[in-house]
């Protein structure tokens, strides 16, 4: 038991870099801004009431979303975006990240609210949780406006919050792989199933944009089967990167290739892809910056910061 506990603590409480955590802060804030600026979520509130007819009262109260308040929603979105900009710049991160996370919890469901309470696959799921976690973490030690430090610290308080964010991202892959096997069994990986998915998502006219890759793949059953097996293996083994850091660069390249392939073969865009940047070793960049500035490094166990 003590061995398990020791392994758990080694995993959770290894030294981390403030650069990695600061990079995560920037990644999630920029990603959320990108999505907010690419949608018209507040305008959903002003849709004719008939679209809102099937939204249960309890769901409206759950998110505090009610039809006919578009202007209010725009004001809320403006506050959320201001908070995200502050978070990105590292200004008052305790408040700005918490406010942006809570306001996104309110705003993000607008995208699907008329037919579902679950705005999955719309890009904000992990972001909402990540912003809350980051708001209570020392994520503005570096790469923050107005923050000048003469010494740089390393320690588990920089690693642990980042690990939580990485767990949330990795779970997407793991759960996607699990559900494929749970719902469809090994047949999900069959060439026949892959072939039908490729045809359906590339040739049905309302979503038919990229077709060449799908048409090529469906002519090659071995490639279809390899695609099915490769996808499930990749997804189910994704948690390995939480433990084996040295494979992360290769895994990230594979993930990027997978998502690009999915765009061109299945016409599906995985909007969380930019969040994979939190697995990049930003500490190396930071080390270069430290070396140039002549910073000293010391390890810390707990941090009391005016965040």
């Amino acid at each position, binding site marked *: 038991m003590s061995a398990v506990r020791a392994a758990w603590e080694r995993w959770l409480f290894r030294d981390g870099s403030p650069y990695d955590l600061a990079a995560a802060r920037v990644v999630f804030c920029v990603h959320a801004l990108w999505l907010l600026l690419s949608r018209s979520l507040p305008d959903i509130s002003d849709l004719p009431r*008939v679209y809102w007819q099937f939204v249960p009262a309890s769901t409206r109260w759950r998110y505090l979303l009610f039809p006919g308040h578009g202007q209010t929603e725009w004001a809320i979105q403006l506050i959320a975006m201001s908070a995200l900009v502050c978070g990105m710049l590292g200004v008052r991160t305790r408040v700005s990240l918490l406010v942006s996370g809570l306001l996104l919890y309110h705003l993000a469901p607008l995208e699907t609210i008329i037919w579902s309470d679950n705005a999955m696959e719309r890009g904000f799921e992990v972001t909402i949780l990540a912003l809350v976690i980051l708001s209570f973490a020392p994520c503005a030690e570096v790469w923050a406006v107005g923050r000048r430090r003469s010494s740089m610290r390393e320690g588990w308080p920089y690693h642990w919050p980042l690990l939580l964010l990485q767990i949330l991202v990795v779970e997407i892959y793991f759960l996607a792989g699990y559900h494929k096997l749970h719902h469809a069994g090994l047949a999900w990986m069959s060439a026949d199933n892959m072939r039908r998915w490729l045809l359906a998502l590339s040739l049905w006219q309302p*979503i038919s944009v990229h077709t060449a890759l799908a048409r090529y793949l469906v002519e090659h059953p071995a490639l279809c089967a390899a695609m099915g097996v490769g996808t499930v293996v990749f997804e189910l083994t994704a948690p390995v990167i939480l433990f084996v850091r040295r494979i992360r660069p290769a895994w990230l390249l594979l993930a990027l290739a997978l998502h690009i392939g999915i765009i061109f073969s299945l016409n599906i865009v995985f909007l969380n892809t930019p969040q994979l940047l939190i697995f990049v070793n930003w500490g190396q960049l930071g080390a270069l910056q430290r070396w140039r500035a002549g910073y000293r490094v010391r390890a810390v166990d707990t941090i009391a910061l005016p965040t």
Partner: protein
Amino acid sequence: MIDRILVRDVLAVACFATFVGGAAWSRTTQTIARVPARRRASLFTIWLLVATLGIGLLERDLYPFTSWPLISWLYPRSYPLRRYILVDARGAEHDIDGRAWEPLSADELASWMAMRFMGLDSTRRDSVARDLMRRATAGVERARAGQRIGTYDRFLGPFSAPLFHVHPQPWNDSGALPPLPFQAFQLYVETWDPDDGARKPANVPRKLLYEYRGVK
């Protein structure tokens, strides 16, 4: 009788509130606490793993905690898909550029049409059809005037985030713009067989579910 939706919504709020509270309680920047920082971090990590994996594995979505069942089923031999089209004065059918529906995204409108539209009474269905015809007409007019068709790209232009599904943008080609006015809105269910659809996409079997004739 227990209202399952109410229970789900209450659970979801409780879960998110617990998450926010747990994150605050376990913060590493806290200096005064009865429980050591590492212990708090451990406990919150365990809670987060149990919550996210439990919700994920059991498929009890409590947004923002979700289960991620991404294209996780066997694609059937044939599958009924809803398709809505507009008909011009000559009787020609037109698919609508999805940007015309914005602020409704093409993905969300498709889901709403598939799951909710036929549950409306006929008066409300007609009001939706009128609204969609109005949006489509305005979209065509904006495209003809060289303006943006939708609203999603008003800030970031071509760098705007795409939707989950990639959609064609036929109205980028001015020659593909349908003539106005539209005369009718039609909703079909298409029995989409991937193999047949690939061989002869124009011959997908379809059945008219609903029609609204606007301008006589």
